[in-house]
């Protein structure tokens, strides 16, 4: 046995034995076949085997886990449902992955305060289901809402279709409870609308598990709208569709959802769900209004007017709930539908100013030719949040490299257009290199200083979000001199 493997095995024994002194044996997984399900999140191209997986059943067990890891200097990677798309929950090879799956209780739904208190492992949709009897729901609705957890939503500041009108996770969370790396209890925000001191809640939301381990979240609930109706609009060119999005927003309208699918995506989605999409259109827009019947009637009329003025070639307004759901079925199934036409796809997530949408989509078309890979587009157009899906075959290493270069060029083009490399999926490990392009060395150092203020030992999810300056130097050098991405340090399967 090589020395390194031997010392790894010794370390694994040391850590798991220390954990076994404070946790039930059943809460600790060390055998490869037991830890395999934790090797990746939904960014499956990046995998690593965790040294130990722990499934604490309550706060005491979580605190004991954190204290033990802190004492032994072991990295801790918190994990929810593993639906993340940027490798934020990728295990650390010499670390403990803490699955918070057992923190799955809704502690309180308060219909008068319009709030719910949920443990971090509660699924996003389960909160809305629990609130439904009171005519309330939790507005942020990431596509993975059936499976993703509220703790994961807080870690990523998740968005979704409804965010254009109702805000991101940040805007819908009042209080977050959790623990420091040392196992000390923490509370950010409050049940009131603000809390004393610095707004640390704003930093915790979207911190990708690097500042604290979240265990409990208090969310805002909003009254379920009486009615929702959706317009499906066809456009003959991508430019016209992009222009229509900018016009809707400029007119001061705030749709409950404003989504765009390009022709390739529409065809793929139509074959998958048979929603009755216009396959001749270069792009279709879904534009929704919700509220009281009077409000919806007023808004739908105003939206239809703007879409027509923007050159829509066909407009259809949902007559009833069944038709509205059919309009959305293709959009909601865009990712699985894409999985059906290509062995693999890489989902990008940049945001750009809305007026640059058409320009961006045309640039992506040119990149398809340049990299000889297909790319289908479906995204939160109202927010300017793109989700280009680059289709490729991961078994072909050369194709994967082309795909990565394609993705990097999309992100860098987004920055040039005044945008950001990630709108809602997070940086994780996937966009570490792109962070070098978006931020200066001093800014990255400041991020690192923020991390150390919460986690001086840098034990919580280390190596994510903030690239080392060395990594950036290497990326920049290779990028400039060879026009190519370096091989990421991470192993791939």
């Amino acid at each position, binding site marked *: 046995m090589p020395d390194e493997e031997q010392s790894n095995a010794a370390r694994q024994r040391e850590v798991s034995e220390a954990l076994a002194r404070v946790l039930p044996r059943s809460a600790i997984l060390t055998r490869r076949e037991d830890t395999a399900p934790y090797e990746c999140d939904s960014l499956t191209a990046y995998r690593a085997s965790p040294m130990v997986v722990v499934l604490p059943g309550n706060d005491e067990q979580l605190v004991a886990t954190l204290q033990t890891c802190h004492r032994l200097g072991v990295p801790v990677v918190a994990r929810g449902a593993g639906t993340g798309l940027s490798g934020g929950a990728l295990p650390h090879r010499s670390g403990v992955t803490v699955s918070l799956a057992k923190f799955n209780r809704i502690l309180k739904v308060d219909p008068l305060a319009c709030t719910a208190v949920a443990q971090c492992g509660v699924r996003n949709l389960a909160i809305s289901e629990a609130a439904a009897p009171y005519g309330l729901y939790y507005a942020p609705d990431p596509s993975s809402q059936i499976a993703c957890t509220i703790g994961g939503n807080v870690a990523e500041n998740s968005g979704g279709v409804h965010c254009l009108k109702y805000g991101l996770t940040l805007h819908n969370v009042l209080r977050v409870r959790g623990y420091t790396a040392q196992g000390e209890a923490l509370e950010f925000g409050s049940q009131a609308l603000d809390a004393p001191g610095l707004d640390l809640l704003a930093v915790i939301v979207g911190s990708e598990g690097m500042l604290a381990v979240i265990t409990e979240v208090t969310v805002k609930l909003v*009254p379920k709208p009486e009615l929702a109706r959706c317009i499906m609009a066809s456009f003959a060119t991508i430019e016209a569709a992009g222009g229509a999005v900018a016009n809707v927003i400029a007119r001061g309208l705030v749709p409950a959802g404003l989504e765009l699918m390009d022709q390739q995506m529409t065809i793929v989605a139509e074959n998958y769900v048979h929603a009755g999409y216009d396959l001749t259109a270069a792009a279709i827009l879904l534009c929704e209004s919700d509220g009281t019947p009077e409000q919806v009637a007023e808004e739908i009329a105003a939206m239809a007017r703007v879409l027509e003025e923007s050159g829509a070639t066909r407009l259809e307004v949902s007559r009833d709930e069944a038709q509205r759901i059919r309009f959305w079925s293709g959009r909601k199934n865009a990712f699985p539908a894409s999985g059906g036409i290509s062995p693999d796809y890489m989902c990008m997530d940049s945001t750009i100013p809305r007026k640059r949408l058409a320009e961006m989509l045309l640039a992506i078309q040119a990149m398809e030719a340049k990299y000889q890979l297909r790319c289908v587009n479906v995204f939160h157009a109202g927010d300017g949040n793109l989700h280009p899906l680059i289709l490729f075959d991961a078994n072909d290493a050369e194709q994967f490299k082309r795909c990565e270069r394609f993705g990097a060029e999309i992100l860098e083009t987004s920055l040039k257009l005044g945008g950001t490399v990630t709108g809602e999926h997070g940086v994780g490990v996937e966009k570490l290199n792109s962070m070098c392009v978006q931020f200066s060395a001093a800014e990255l150092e*400041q991020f690192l200083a923020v991390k150390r203020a919460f986690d001086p030992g840098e034990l919580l999810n280390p190596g994510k979000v903030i690239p080392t300056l060395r990594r950036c130097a290497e990326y920049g050098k290779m990028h400039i001199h060879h026009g190519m991405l370096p091989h990421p340090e991470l192993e791939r399967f």
Partner: protein
Amino acid sequence: MSTAAGGARRLVDRIRWARSQRIALDIRGGSTKSFYGELPRGAPLDVRDLSGIASYEPSELVVTARAGTPLAELEAALAEKGQCLPFEPPRFAPGGTVGGMVAAGLSGPARASVGAVRDYVLGVTVLNGRAELLTFGGQVIKNVAGYDVSRMMVGSWGVLGVLCEVSLKVTSARGATATLVFDWDERRALESLARWRSQPLPLHASAWHEGRLHLRLSGALAAVRSACGRLGGVELEPSAAAAWWEGVRDHAHEFFKLGEAELADGECLWRLSVPATTPLLELPGRQFIEWGGAQRWWRTRARSNELRGAAARAGGHATLVRAADKSAGAFAPVDSVLMRIHRSLKRAFDPDRIFNAGRLYADL
């Protein structure tokens, strides 16, 4: 943000000087909020010549303004395009700046329905204590690249850095509004607000004071008219309603005006931020309730531990806003773990403690 970089050069020199001389700096805009929080200390660092709207895209609903831009100038530019800052930042007095609005993080009457300043901040450019010019966030609505440092600057009272430029999401100001008045006691007002909260009504702002509830509705015309019909009350004439809400927003209303004599006599203005469902608070003095019950102002001579205790029992906190004696601390303290994180963050941004020392908490 090259323009901000150019305008910030003078500030960089001054920060370097302060750092080398170990002199504390008092970051100043229009000085309209110097009464709020702990007493400003140190040599003034005026940011008002870092002024002007850097970019404004009405169709994108995004504006970027330098920190020293007068708030009035920004609001006028937005109004010209039928847009506004929906969180209605209080102005207290003429001359306030965009930077001061963000650093104080205070929001006005519509806060409970539309969100706070921090919910509309998209990005900031700041100078930290090492005089490094740093940009966080950006000009787009959805952005999760790196920690959300820009929103942490909101309400930080300048203790982490000097704001140079701020990007804000703005909204259309073209919706219909109506203000209804109900002659109700506190109990009935709070109960009605709680009932309405869970209904799909276009609620926009509420204020209860001395037996009278003002309720503002805003949204699609049809929705506002239908809600007026449903809720009853007496509708205020639009210009009178607008003037009344401005008085609340800017603390020009009689309730908020504490004269020198009253302050000297021990009367204080407290802000209690509590869960909206908090029942009637039994405290001596006069009260003004906003935000559907979540913000309760008290004019009182009661001791600070009475106010802080009542707020804490309700799950909130109390700020001592106006008082002759603020020795009890302007802001409610945070627990020891959070305080340690506060101190570490201060060190991370401003290692030599030159910015607004003591303005938020004594040891920051």
